[in-house]
């Protein structure tokens, strides 16, 4: 199916509900054959660190770490905002599988080329 979706996730354990639902929607999209990227920015970049999401499990949802794994399994891409990442002094060596650090050009290019965007 044609079309792309960019899911912007701006929260981590400061708002686990938003962080979780962002990945739930991203899973729905990627598993439906839509080219899907999650863009982690501001506090959301903390999710890019291995093990960080292990303690986030909202009632009624699958654990966040499991949602992130299934998103990558469904060929979703995790984009990590570079300045947000550096500001928080996070480690490139601890990136979760499928995550890559990008600047603003990548999400902007996705959107100007037609990707729809939803933010959590």
């Amino acid at each position, binding site marked *: *199916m044609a079309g792309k979706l960019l899911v912007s996730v701006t929260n981590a354990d400061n708002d686990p509900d938003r962080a979780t639902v962002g*990945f*739930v*929607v*991203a*899973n*729905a*999209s990627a*598993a*439906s*054959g*839509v080219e899907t990227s999650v863009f982690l920015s501001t506090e959301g970049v903390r999710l890019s660190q291995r093990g960080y999401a292990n303690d986030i*499990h909202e*009632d*009624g*949802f*699958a*654990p966040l770490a*499991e*949602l992130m794994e*299934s998103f990558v*399994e*469904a060929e979703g891409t995790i984009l990590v905002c570079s300045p947000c990442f550096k500001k928080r002094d996070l480690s490139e060596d601890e990136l979760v599988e499928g995550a890559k650090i990008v600047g603003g050009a990548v999400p902007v290019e996705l959107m100007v080329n037609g990707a729809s965007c939803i933010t959590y």
Partner: protein
Amino acid sequence: MGWLARIIASGPRLVPSAAGPRVAAEPSHRGRAGQTELCLAFRRHRAGPPARDPLELRAMEPGELTPTFFADVEEMGCGSLMVALMRAMRGVGRGEVLQIRAVDPGARHDIPSWCRMTGHRLLHGPCGATGDEYLIRKRED
């Protein structure tokens, strides 16, 4: 007992049939507060043509409705349901029919939408005695 119920009752629920191939991973998670463990069980339907319920099958084309695989996704919904469908469909051959049982209230809208996006064909559903069953033919290409 309907033919689907017989399929479900033919072996321990949520456990792959020893006779049939396991066609997908069996992801599971347990909720925080003792939520029901959600698992997928897949099994090849080998019992031969089921005794069909004429009321249920009236609108279907001959030869289209023998499911090859069955997956009970129980209460999975939203993104988890889509991932479960994706995983289940990986083990289904082109043109073969996957039968799904999904009880999430959003499934009756999400499953047709997923079929439109992925190109698989929703043959029938929601249907069955409890209105939570779906027959999906995998796309040929």
